[in-house]
């Protein structure tokens, strides 16, 4: 990762160690995960021990220390979505993307994740692809959405 980007983020918060969590979030927004060299860099810049950053990063579910895909598919597994077949959607995506739930494809294009509820139960089953909420999804629509992303990547 480009460490000057990390520097810019730290600068945004005036190098204040109390903003550590926000800095970590911003770094993760850039890379979809927290690269180890970025963690080390933040540690030296803010004079916060690596052990503490690691502690925080593993405490919060929203931080990732392993590389994640360019596109992130999150399947809502809340009660409402669950009864409308969210589990089948996960299995469908697992086959479609050839990756286990929670994992990332080898080409670092897709990450498949589950989330327990996003509070949009009326739209269930719900799948979030790159921050875009798809309500009442079916496996056919998912296949299309994934294909779209794949061809867009291929066309670039």
């Amino acid at each position, binding site marked *: 990762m480009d460490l000057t980007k990390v520097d810019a983020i730290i600068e945004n918060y005036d190098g204040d160690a109390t903003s550590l969590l926000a800095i970590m979030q911003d770094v993760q927004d850039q890379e979809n995960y927290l690269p180890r060299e970025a963690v080390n860099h933040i540690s030296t810049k803010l004079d916060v*021990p*690596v*052990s503490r*950053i*690691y*502690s925080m990063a*593993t405490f919060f579910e929203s931080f990732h220390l392993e590389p994640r895909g360019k596109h992130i598919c999150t399947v809502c597994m809340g009660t409402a979505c669950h009864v409308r077949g969210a589990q089948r959607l996960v299995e469908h995506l697992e086959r479609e993307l050839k990756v286990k739930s929670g994992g990332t494809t080898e080409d670092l294009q897709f990450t498949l994740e589950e989330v327990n509820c996003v509070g949009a139960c009326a739209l269930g089953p719900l799948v979030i692809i790159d921050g875009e909420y798809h309500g009442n999804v079916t496996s056919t629509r998912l296949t299309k959405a994934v294909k779209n992303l794949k061809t867009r990547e291929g066309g670039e």
Partner: protein
Amino acid sequence: MTVKFTINGVKVEAESGDSVIDTARRYGFDIPSLCHHQAVTPYGACRVCLVEITKGGRKKITTCCNYEVLDGIDVVTDSEAIHKHRAMVLELILAEAPDAEPVKKLAAKYGVNVSRFERPKAGAAQERHDCIMCGLCVRVCTEIVEVNALAFNGRGYNRGVGGPYLEAPQSCIACGACAWVCPTDCIGFVEEDGMRKVLKWDRELPMEKDEDGRPFAPKFQLHYFKEKFGLPADIYKKAPGTR
């Protein structure tokens, strides 16, 4: 400022800011605890030091390691109710750390030999179940030694303690303070073949030898002390009495 209160009916005095547990121990009252050490910030993690404190006519059972002394409170360090609560707490701790001898011993004192609760799930970070997550090692490493090698990781069932990225912590000087302070003796500290090893963290450091070739302390630790306290370069060459 001096604070006056009673423990088990005995009049005692302490400085404001002192904890009830330290004052009680100073006066010879026996209060069990696992996670407390007076050198570091109280944490209230193990809950074994429960006592009954009456303040303004209201009685409550609370941990006394993180309870600061107050004028006029009455502390009772043992009663049937306290005994019952401590037994319960120890049964829970025993479920978390069934392999820890000191925990077994203390629990047996309270009549708890088997825990009714389930063992921690297999595949948790630790193989032996002897850590009670009291955080004493973390606090000592952060507050006293100030190398910040250790921290908690994960959360809930998967909580663990160790170096960042679950690797041997690179800032660890193998001073052994964590192993010394650990209430369950689960860290492990050995010196052999000129190496000092802190087993739980998987940290191994080569040791400096004295004139007679006997290893006495890890080089990295000596270097850290020298830097930290601004000691002269040849400090470790001189015999201890003449430094």
